[in-house]
């Protein structure tokens, strides 16, 4: 079996030769290759080369075309500041507090900001890997993109003070995600991972997720499936137990779960959905590799009978992580 087949076997709960492993290696690939993160997030070809090199080294089952969470907002008109060794930050949001997102035009994936760079990276990854390894693109989910239009505080106050106007922002963000997701699949992504950290119950109550975000995620995932995504992957970090049961209704086939949720709890909440997680991402910085190995073996053991599991961290493996810890994660899989 190759990596893509292994990932899809987990999604379909069919037997595989070994459990798939998909460490969330984004900016770490730049650091591992000795490339400044500033360059990695602005050059799709460079990003793809770093992903290919680190995949060739570790042999994991998925590569990620991910730059940063400011990508879409920048393409819409926000201004970013770039750093040598950190992800960029938004310095000026495209919308002032309370403004109408309905006035914004949808960004052009082939022309605006760095959107085309990410597409170039996806095309290069797919060209190099074909169908041997899952090529994952990346999208901001509706809630997170809405917050990136105004800034988190202004967006949350808008959600409370003028829910109608905030829903316009959510609809706009959903339309952006659909358009960019379709472009990523057309460029060669097997699927785009939908990252929606602001949809976490740590940010908004579960009822907010159910009433406002679930319908938009349904629209987004339906459109991605229609565009040819091999599966739908929803990635929300934090204490997601209260919202996990709604993931199947959203259309998610792969659910990332973080260290807050135990494997047993996640399996109970999502009995028929492929789960991906859930090692603590900060442990990859300087915990002993034995600790990573032990945590990985525990997670693998929890899903040995059930299947439908992809070994990973619950959130991004930090760029400055120790390579020995990533090697320990991979070795745990190889020992199965």
């Amino acid at each position: 079996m190759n990596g893509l087949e292994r990932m899809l076997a987990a999604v379909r709960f069919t037997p595989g030769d070994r459990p798939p492993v998909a460490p969330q290696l984004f900016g770490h690939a730049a650091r591992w290759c000795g490339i400044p993160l500033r360059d990695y997030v602005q050059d799709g070809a460079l990003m793809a080369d770093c992903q290919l090199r680190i995949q060739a080294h570790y042999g994991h089952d998925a590569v990620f075309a991910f730059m940063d969470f400011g990508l879409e907002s920048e393409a819409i008109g926000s201004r970013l500041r770039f750093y040598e060794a950190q992800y960029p930050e938004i310095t000026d949001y495209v919308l002032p507090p309370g403004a109408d997102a309905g006035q914004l035009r949808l960004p052009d994936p082939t022309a605006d900001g760095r959107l085309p760079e990410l597409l170039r990276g996806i095309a290069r990854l797919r060209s190099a890997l074909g169908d041997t390894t899952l090529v994952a693109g990346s999208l901001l989910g509706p809630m997170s993109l809405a917050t990136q239009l105004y800034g988190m505080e202004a967006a949350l106050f808008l959600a409370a003070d003028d829910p109608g106007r905030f829903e316009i922002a959510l609809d706009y963000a959903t339309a952006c995600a659909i358009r960019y997701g379709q472009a990523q699949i057309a460029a060669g992504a097997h699927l785009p991972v939908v990252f929606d950290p602001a949809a976490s119950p740590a940010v908004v109550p579960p009822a907010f997720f159910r009433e406002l975000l679930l319908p938009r995620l349904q629209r987004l995932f339906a459109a991605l499936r229609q565009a040819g995504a091999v599966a739908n992957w929803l990635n929300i970090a934090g204490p997601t137990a209260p919202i996990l049961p709604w993931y199947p209704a959203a259309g998610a086939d792969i659910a990332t779960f973080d260290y807050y949720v135990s494997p047993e709890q996640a399996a109970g909440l999502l009995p028929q959905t492929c789960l991906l997680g859930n090692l603590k991402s900060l442990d990859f910085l300087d915990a002993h590799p034995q600790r990573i190995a032990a945590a990985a073996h525990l997670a693998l053991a929890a899903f040995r009978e059930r299947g439908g599991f992809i070994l990973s961290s619950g959130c991004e493996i930090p760029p400055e992580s120790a390579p020995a810890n990533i090697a320990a994660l991979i070795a745990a899989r190889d020992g199965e």
Partner: protein
Amino acid sequence: MDTAFPAVDEFGTLIDVLLAGDHAAALAETQRLIQAGHPAEKIVTAGLETAMRRLDDKCTVESFNLLEIMLVGRAVSAVVHELYPEGVPPENSRGTLIVATLEGDVHDLGKNIVKMVLIGKGYRVVDLGRDCPVATLVAATAREAASGVLISGLISSIVPQVRRVRPALRTHGLGSVWVVAGGAALKQCAAADLDVDYVAENAFDGARYIEARFTGATP
């Protein structure tokens, strides 16, 4: 009836609108209480602190969410600004604390939340903002005679900076100052790994630790 210690009921409306996150109603109710002759300190202790205690009880790890906290925080800030337009005087506070996000981390939402919680609980809070050098943190701690510093960190690259705080405070004779860390990245670390006194799960957890230190209780 002892007017120096009005019943909590007189502050019931203020508590309710604070917990509802209705900042306009909280402001109006505060103005009514002032006009009724209630001193600012009493509005803080019977109104704000009671509301924050109830919110604290409600905000377990499972149910803590930013939206709700921010709405209450906005209401609390409006009330505090109405009571103390020039800032809370030290003699009217339960103690002085420093909050900051360290140099290299520009995410300050977590810091703003912990600041709001501490103000709501009656502390004087000196906010050093984001991207704050450790040297600035140490100088402010000495200048303000702060009892504790609270550091929020969203990104993992900030960990080495956090580890510098305790030695820097010690070098300047401030070794007894409590150091509390929190935020999405830092809360995944152990206190010993960061060389801090406590790693808080959320803003209320951090505030509980601070309260315990002030009262001499075992944190």
